[in-house]
């Protein structure tokens, strides 16, 4: 076995172990991102640089099983054509690399590199034209229009107040309802931990396709095929700015669990100045009237490069709310609702976690935004070391999924 093969073998074994662990399952905290989570932290910790990361791929139409369609030279079945033309094919990708995270008690400093892309691979009408040909006079498609990608870094300084606060001011409030009085009484006694976060964003890369038009038509007025493509992206001459955003979170102890609320990326934006832009246009036009004076078969392409001044992308705020119910020390369930600007696991989700032997957590979450997703997370949780692995299937499981994500992290606590 040569060196390369040996490396490949080791890597394969490593991945198999991950899968095995995945199948065994375990648990980490659901609301790890919440700033209030470090309020009662009494140790130091850091992430192993570059070993904490995640990546997700998702599309809205094709399952993994459909990859067999793309065998070079394979003759497509009619059913496969139908599938490819059922809807637009959009590919979403996001990735996050936690390059640095260092925590000291109720303080934390982290630096992450985040990227996300939303790419329209195949518009429905465009796909119909390609796979079935033309059966109508004209087609106007915008295949690829609106596709974009951005990469930015996020440096976060998190602080959580180390003591719980209580809403004592509610103690004296009395209502006509005994039940309501009991609830208000409970809330006033409820320990609440608060945290805040200051984020500094730096824009690393941006690309966007604001215009991608394809026109094709063939009628007795004319036969034509045109395209227009405009895109811009950051290059070495682009000025990338810093911007600020804030986040805040709370956790509140309930009788059998915890309530969590997390707002983040408030006022966050990515700014780019002096983007490089390109415009391409191709025209083919045949008026069909070959005998008319001035008839000309028009065929030309235009390409233009220029620069645009400024582009500001405002990131949607991160919102996360949920409740973790502790059935026992080892078994917990969660219900949450989350929206983010650059992650997939949005929407409402239900999850369960169980700690095997106290140190092998397993979590399984089912969520739904536009489609269902299924996330499994497992790892090892020791007193001074945590290792986490996660995989997510979108819109189905295994070969029937339309997307997949991986997440891993290694944390050392001391």
């Amino acid at each position: 076995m040569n060196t390369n093969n040996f490396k490949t073998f080791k890597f394969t074994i490593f991945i198999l172990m991950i899968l095995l662990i995945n199948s065994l399952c375990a648990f980490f905290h659901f609301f790890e991102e919440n700033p209030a989570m470090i309020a009662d932290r009494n140790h130091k910790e850091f992430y192993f640089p570059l070993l904490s990361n995640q990546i997700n791929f998702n599309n809205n139409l094709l399952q993994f099983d459909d990859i067999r369609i793309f065998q070079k030279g394979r003759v497509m079945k009619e059913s496969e054509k139908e599938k490819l033309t059922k809807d637009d094919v959009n590919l979403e990708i996001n990735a996050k690399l936690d390059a640095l995270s260092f925590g000291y008690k109720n303080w934390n400093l982290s630096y992450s590199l985040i990227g996300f892309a939303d790419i329209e691979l195949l518009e429905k009408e465009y796909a119909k034209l390609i796979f079935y040909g033309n059966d109508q006079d004209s087609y106007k498609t915008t295949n690829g229009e609106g596709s974009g990608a951005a990469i930015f870094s996020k440096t976060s300084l998190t602080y959580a107040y180390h003591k719980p606060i209580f809403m004592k001011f509610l103690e004296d409030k009395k209502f006509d309802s005994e039940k309501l009085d009991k609830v208000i009484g409970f809330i006033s006694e409820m320990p609440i931990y608060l945290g805040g976060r200051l984020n500094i964003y730096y824009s690393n890369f941006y690309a966007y396709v604001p215009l991608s038009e394809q026109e094709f038509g063939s009628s007795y007025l004319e036969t034509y095929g045109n395209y227009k493509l405009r895109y811009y992206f950051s290059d070495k001459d682009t000025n990338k700015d810093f911007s600020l955003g804030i986040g805040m979170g709370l956790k509140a102890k309930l009788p059998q669990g915890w309530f969590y609320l997390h707002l983040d990326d408030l006022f966050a934006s990515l700014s780019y100045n002096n983007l490089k832009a390109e415009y391409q246009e191709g025209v083919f036009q045949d008026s069909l009237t070959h005998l008319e004076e001035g008839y000309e078969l028009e065929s030309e392409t235009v390409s233009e490069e220029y620069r645009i001044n400024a582009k500001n992308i405002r990131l949607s705020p991160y919102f996360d709310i949920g409740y973790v119910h502790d059935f026992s020390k080892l078994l917990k369930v969660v219900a949450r609702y989350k929206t983010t600007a650059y992650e997939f696991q949005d929407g409402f989700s239900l999850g369960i976690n169980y700690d095997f032997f106290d140190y092998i957590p397993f979590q399984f979450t089912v969520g739904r935004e536009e489609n269902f997703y299924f996330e499994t997370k497992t790892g090892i949780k020791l007193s001074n070391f945590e290792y986490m692995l996660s995989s997510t299937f979108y819109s189905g499981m295994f070969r029937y999924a339309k997307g997949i994500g991986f997440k891993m992290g290694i944390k050392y606590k001391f």
Partner: protein
Amino acid sequence: MKNILLTLFVMIVLSCSIPSDLGIPTWNTKYNLKIINDSWDIVQLAEEDTTIIVIEEDLFFHEFFNDRSIVDEIDIDDPAEKEAIITLGEMNSDLEAVNDSTIIVSPFDIEPIEKELDPFEEFIEITFSSGLLRFVIHNETSIVLGDSPENPLVAQIINYDTGELLFEESYPEDIMPNSFSSLLVNLSDITIPNTIKVVIMGGSKGSNGETIIIDTSEEMHISVQFEDIKASHAIARIPEQEIDISSGYKDVSTPYPAIFGTLELAGNSRMVISYSTPIPASAEIILLASNDEEEMYFVLNNGEYPVLEMLGNSAPPDSMIIEFQANESNLNEFLSILPTKIEYSLYPIIGDDSDEYYEISSTDSVFIQVDFFAELNINADCWIIPISDNVPKTTSENTIDFNDDLYNAFVSGGFHLDYSNTTGLRVGFDILLSETDFTTFEEILYPDTTNVKILHIPLLETTIDTTDFKSVDIILEHLDLQPMLADSIFIATKLQLKSEADEPLSGIVKVLGEMNLELTISSDLIEQ
């Protein structure tokens, strides 16, 4: 590394059928492309052609030539001789007193004596280009006329109406009694009206020292005679006379194709001759149409060449016209040979034997323009092959980019044509594709189908009107594209025409053409 990741991905999605060669699959797609929406309006096409014209919505082949014959010198019949008499008494009135006496007459001066001549009937005015005027004096007196050298006898011709001296000549020698003397005057560039008078003056030697009996009634006879005259301008009776023969040829500009079969003109063709001539004229015109293979003379139904009888006094643009119709001549046959050249000879004769006076100059001419109008009412059953330099016209297309991938991508195809045809002419096409060039007409007329692929577009039948559409479908076989696998391909076309000459060529051919293709799209094709 790529393969490793791919393998891992397989494991992750648990037994997905991962392609061994990930790439673009293959599928069949049908495309329908509209390729033609054209109308051939025969009238509009004619307007773009210099030899096809439209007359009252009918099409005519039109060709013409013109030429002129210069009159040059005008022959005029010699006018009749004119005479005048002067008596001795008119010459010397002093002699009246001694009439019948026998005396010696001393020399004396003859005072100018004017004598009007009778007007010339043959002309009103002539400017001579050549000719002579003979001035003869018969001295029937007893004295000597002239006293040379000091005082010779002088004769003048004067315009009667204006008194202008036309010319003056002296007799170099004295005219003795009972003798005569002639003067010859060159008339070149001299204009003489038909009313003139003669003037005699000078000296006389008298009886030259001899004794004579005076008789004052003795006479001097004067005669004026034109000889061998030709005019550069005349208002005169013009006798019949030939002028310069005009001849030449006209190349027909129409680039005729090669025609195999019957193609005849059968309409109301006509030859229109526009002419102008200052005086009545006639001309025999001989026309010879020819092409590389045959020639034909234009003749009337009686087998003779046409003779143009032309009235005078017309000049462009007020030309006068003589027409020859197809039914009184062989005009349709003459033009049906599709001449590349028309030769002509014109033999003009001007003048007549009448007493009419005509004004004519040597710079005048007889102008003739011959216009052929051949109505395009065609009796046709033929194949037409475009030619270039007398060989079939073919085109060569570079097909080096058409390779096996493109050839294999073609599954099936064809053309669907909807058309209306109100021209009265049925038209079809054969498009021939070959890897080798077509060098003879036979190779196109009777192609070797083992080497030549033929795209046959059947006859487009006539339709009732432009809203009445018929359709034809042309199937394109896979093998039809085989010649395109060569680096270059030669394309020849032949056109099939059928018409029974029911009506003149006119109307519109409208064609809506659609190409239907079924292609196999593959990664190889996309890479192309």
